[in-house]
């Protein structure tokens, strides 16, 4: 089973204060901690588990500058065999469509039975790259995948629907699955794994290596062009309670009591 995992190196923003940079088109990334996209982390773990069970190889691919190698090193440390980094200043500003084209240009030259990636990225949240890539590769796909059972030439997958419901599909391989969080429990990286990963080679490819034109990638090759970022307007603002923890707790109890809930 040869598996390709597409991963993205993204800033952790859940608890960080975000500032919009002077261009108005992106956030100020200074001081933010970058790591593998949370959803991709589950995709990577799933790929390594499948390899451990059925044999084969795992190849991790990312698009990004030099610092995104730390995410590829993490993939290698966790059990990926090979890593490819696609990098070029011309890739800047690529949306899901242009990103899929860049990934496609390389993946079409590789052997694979399965392509795994996260159902979405924590930064852009498009949830679109996977199915676009599958269409370009002309292979079936499933998104929001919560469970994968592999058979001979086919996979049974559970997809998340709304309200706790799932649907089970049968999909012919090779196929692309965009996985949801919670499909597995990503493992910690061993010291041995990190040491081994440092010795593995990361293949670096630029626009010229992809066979794509400048107009295929970046903003020119995208469907979506960001005009500006802004802080969401406040529709309803909570009434903020201030004071010491004890004072706040007392106020909260008063509020809850006033509704007859204590």
């Amino acid at each position, binding site marked *: 089973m040869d598996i390709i995992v597409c991963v993205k190196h993204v800033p952790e923003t859940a608890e960080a204060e975000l500032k919009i940079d002077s261009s108005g088109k992106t956030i100020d990334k200074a001081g933010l901690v970058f790591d593998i996209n949370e959803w991709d982390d589950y995709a990577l773990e799933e790929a390594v588990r499948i390899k451990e069970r059925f044999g084969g190889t795992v190849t991790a691919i990312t698009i990004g500058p030099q610092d995104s190698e730390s995410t590829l090193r993490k993939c290698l440390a966790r059990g990926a065999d090979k890593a490819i980094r696609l990098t070029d200043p011309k890739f800047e500003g690529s949306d899901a469509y242009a990103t899929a084209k860049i990934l496609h240009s390389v993946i079409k030259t590789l052997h694979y039975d399965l392509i795994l990636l996260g159902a979405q990225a924590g930064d852009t949240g498009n949830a679109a790259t996977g199915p676009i890539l599958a269409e370009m590769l002309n292979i079936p796909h499933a998104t929001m995948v919560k469970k994968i059972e592999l058979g001979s030439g086919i996979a049974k997958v559970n997809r998340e629907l709304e309200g706790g*419901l799932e649907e089970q599909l049968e999909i012919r391989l090779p196929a692309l699955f965009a996985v949801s969080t919670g499909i597995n429990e990503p493992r910690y990286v061993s010291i041995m794994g990190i040491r081994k990963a440092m010795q593995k080679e990361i293949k670096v490819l630029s626009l010229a290596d992809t066979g794509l034109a400048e107009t295929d990638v970046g903003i020119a090759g995208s469907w979506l062009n960001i005009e500006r970022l802004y802080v969401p*307007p406040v529709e309803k603002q909570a009434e*903020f309670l201030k004071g010491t923890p004890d004072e706040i707790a007392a106020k909260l109890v008063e509020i809850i009591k006033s509704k007859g809930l204590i």
Partner: protein
Amino acid sequence: MAKIFVLAEHRQGQIRDITFELLTKARELAEKTNAELCAVILGKNVQEHAKALAEYAKTVITVEDPKLENFNSEAYKRILSKLIVEHKPSLVILGHTSYGVELAPRLAAALNTPLATDIIDIAFEGDTLAVTRQMYGGKVNVKAVLRKADTYMVTVRQATFTPKKPEPPANGQIITVPSPLTEEISEKRFLQYVLPPPGGVDITAAEKLVGIGRGIKDQANMPLMEDLAKTLGAVLACSRPIVDKGWLPNDRQVGSSGKTVKPKLYLALGISGAFQHVLGMKSSDLIIAVNKDPKAPIFSFADYGVVEDLFKIVPSLKNKINEAKAQKT
């Protein structure tokens, strides 16, 4: 006349709410741009649904086929590709639902139709399409324009637009188009629906919920949370990361992929407020949120907010609740 397509969504014989949300917004866009609003529904035995859609849309295109009994994005892609090429709508609107996410990007790629996903607002500016969407878990809004094209496609976030039935009803014309599917879709087959195993607790029936999220940090803190919930006489619910980590079972999850709740009190502890979670709890009577991050989106939905480390608040809160209960007796 230009057309706007809205794809109707239905599952297990029920038309889904998102369909009417989309139709309501699409109707407004159609009026502004002098376009014809056209609802499209694919399935098996969908004539009753078509009648409901006809109250909103000028035309309703139905494609009936036993092979469409259950949603299959590949079947939908083939049929919609054909309809879009024939009718050349200026805009195709789908829900940013599990179905829209599965179908729209692939359909857009097949037709090379510029797509924006998970949008929260949309407007034609001349012949270009401008959209608003969010990034970084709802902390930043983005205004973007789509590359100029004859047809644009968007997926719309659920519960963004409030459905409103047109008065008088549009009384649209229902057009039945023969299915172009000649064979089963062999590479992708629907097998069955799967319900999660029933749990012991029904969070939708609880009067008070303590919702916990990523901010509780460690499984070792779970007893503290359970303790608070017990003291308050509430049931412990959670956002997705807690279920992903296996700290609470699936049936405690509030949100689009979990349960929708409407308790009298929702106390959100360490929950940032990603829209998927908010969808499931925003109709609660009283929402109190405790989060260290003053910019957390949850504060736009809460009635009362506390910007503080929840571990400083929870022990005090537990004591004060006990005191209040003691006074009462």
